[in-house]
C-alpha cells in the first residue's frame, strides 16, 4: 500500500508540473498556480484554470477508469491479453454514441451519450464473448468485432457529414483537447461508482482466476461475476469513449505494470492499476500538448511511447510468470 500512496503523491506533483507547461507560456506561473483565481477574465488565468486544469484532471480520472476497466477485463476473462479495445467494447461504445447522436437522441459529450455508449459497449462485449469458444478465440473474435464496428462508425460519420459528430481520427485515436469542466464533471460522476464497484468485485475476481468449475464448486455463479464485470467496464469504457474518443493500450498495460508492483490480488490491483493509469495518461497527455506546441500530438501515440517500454520493463523484471 505504501507504493500506492507514494505514486499518488507523484501524480499530484506531476499534475502541478503539467499545469505549468503548455503551448502558451504564462508569466510567474507558479505564483498563479498557488493562488488560483478561477473567475478571473485574465488570459493567463483562463489558460491555467479553464483550459489546462480540466484537461489535467480529466486525464487523471480517465486514466483511473481505463486502467480499472483493464483490470476487470483481464480478471473476468482470465486472459492477460484482454483489453476492452480487443474485446469489441471500445468500438461498440463508439458505435453507440454515433447512433445516439445521428438519430438525434442525445447530444455528444452528455450523460445520455454515455448511456448510448454503455449499451453499445456491453452488447458488443457480450457478442464477442458469446461467439468465442476459448481464450485465444476471444481475442481474435474481439479484434474482428472491433474492426467491423469501427468500419461502420467510420462510414456512418463520413456519409452523415454532420458537424456535431466528431472526426474519424477522434474515434480512432482519441484526444483530450476538448475536455471542459462540465465534461470532467460527467466523467467524475461515473468514475466513483466504477472504482467502488470494481473494488467490491475484487475478491470474486481472485476466485474466478481458479477457473469456472472452482467458482461453481464454491457456491458462486462464474457467469454472474463475469456479467457484473462486463457491465462495470462497459460503463467505464463508454464514459472514456464518449468524452475523449478511443484511447487504447492503457487498459492493457496498466494492470500488468500494477501486478509487478503489488502482486495479483485484485483488492490491491484495482487501486494500484488506477494510479498507474492516471500517471501514464497524465504524462502522455502533457507530453502530447507540450512536445511540439501549438500542435496536439495524438494521445494514443504517446501512451504507446511511454506505456509500452514501461510494460516491457515490468514484465522482464517480473520474470516469465504472470504476476
Amino acid at each position, binding site marked *: 500500500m505504501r507504493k500506492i500512496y507514494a505514486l499518488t503523491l507523484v501524480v499530484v506533483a506531476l499534475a502541478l508540473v503539467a499545469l505549468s507547461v503548455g503551448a502558451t507560456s504564462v508569466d510567474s506561473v507558479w505564483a498563479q498556480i498557488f493562488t488560483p483565481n478561477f473567475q478571473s477574465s485574465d488570459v493567463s488565468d483562463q489558460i491555467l484554470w479553464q483550459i489546462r486544469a480540466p484537461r489535467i484532471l480529466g486525464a487523471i480520472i480517465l486514466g483511473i477508469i481505463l486502467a480499472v476497466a483493464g483490470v476487470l477485463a483481464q480478471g473476468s476473462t482470465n486472459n492477460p491479453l484482454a483489453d476492452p479495445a480487443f474485446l469489441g467494447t471500445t468500438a461498440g461504445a463508439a458505435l453507440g454514441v454515433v447512433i445516439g447522436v445521428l438519430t438525434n437522441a442525445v447530444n455528444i459529450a452528455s450523460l445520455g451519450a454515455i448511456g448510448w455508449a454503455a449499451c453499445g459497449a456491453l452488447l458488443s462485449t457480450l457478442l464477442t464473448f458469446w461467439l468465442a469458444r476459448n481464450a485465444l478465440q476471444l481475442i481474435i473474435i474481439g479484434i474482428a468485432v472491433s474492426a467491423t464496428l469501427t468500419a461502420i462508425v467510420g462510414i456512418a460519420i463520413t456519409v452523415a457529414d454532420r458537424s456535431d459528430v466528431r472526426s474519424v481520427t477522434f474515434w480512432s485515436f482519441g484526444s483530450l483537447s476538448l475536455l471542459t469542466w462540465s465534461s470532467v464533471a460527467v466523467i467524475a460522476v461515473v468514475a466513483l461508482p466504477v472504482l467502488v464497484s470494481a473494488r467490491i468485485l475484487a475478491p470474486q475476481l481472485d476466485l474466478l*482466476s481458479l477457473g469456472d468449475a472452482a467458482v461453481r464448486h464454491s457456491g458462486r455463479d462464474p457467469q454472474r461475476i463475469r456479467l457484473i464485470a462486463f457491465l462495470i467496464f462497459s460503463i467505464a469504457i463508454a464514459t472514456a469513449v464518449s468524452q475523449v474518443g478511443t484511447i487504447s493500450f492503457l487498459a492493457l498495460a496498466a494492470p500488468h505494470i500494477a501486478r509487478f508492483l503489488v502482486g495479483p*490480488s485484485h483488492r490491491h490491483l484495482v487501486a494500484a492499476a488506477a494510479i498507474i493509469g492516471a500517471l501514464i495518461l497524465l504524462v502522455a497527455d502533457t507530453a502530447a500538448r507540450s512536445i511540439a506546441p501549438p500542435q496536439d500530438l495524438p494521445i494514443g501515440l504517446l501512451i504507446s511511447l511511454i506505456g509500452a517500454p514501461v510494460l516491457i520493463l515490468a514484465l522482464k523484471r517480473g520474470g516469465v510468470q*504472470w504476476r
Partner: protein
Amino acid sequence: MALIFLNNVTISRGNYRVIENLSLEIKEGTITAIVGANGSGKSTLIGAIAGDHPLDEGSISINGLNLKDLSLGEQSRLRSVVSQEQFFWLAFTVRQVIEMGQLYENLSRVESVVSQLGIAAIVDQSVLTLSGGQLQRVAIARALVCDTPIYLFDEPLASQDKKSRADLISLFGTMRDQGKTIVVVMHSEVSDLDWCDQIIQDLT
C-alpha cells in the same frame, strides 16, 4: 439411509452415452472408489454428483434432496470438489489460493489443514512454482477447509509419490472415521483399493 442416491442416471457427451441407466447408493461415512478405463465416464460421474453435468435421464439426490433443486450455494455446503486439473494463471501464494472464497468461520481451519497435508513449508510460495503433486494437495487443502459432509476427489493420488499416497490414504481413513463421506475417482487396480468401502466399475 444412503447419503447420495443415483436413480437410473444416463448422461451423454455429444452422441455418445457415457453413463447409462446407472443406479447406486453411497452411504454416509464411507469411502467409495470409481474405477475404470480411460474415457469410461469416471470423471463424468463424479462431475454429475458435483452438479457439473446435466442428466439426460434419472436423478441424483443428496441427503434426500434432488440435486436439481439445490442452488450452487446449497450444494457447496453439502460437498467439496477437487478436480483432476488445477488451473492457475496468476502468481497467488498457496495461502491466498486456499483462503479464496472461503466462509469466514472456516478460515481458522487453514493452519491445521495445511499441516495435515504437509504443505506448511510452501504456503507463502507462488502456486506457479509448484509441481503437479503439490498443486493437487493445495486443491485438496481448499476442499478440506470447507468442512462439508461429502468430499468428491477426481484422481487425488495421480501425481503423488509413494509417501504422499500413503499419507493421503490414511487421511481419507481418518476423515471417514469422523463421519465424512468420500467419493474418489481412481486409476488403480481393484486389488489396491482395500482402503475403500465400495468400488464402482461398470458405468454403462
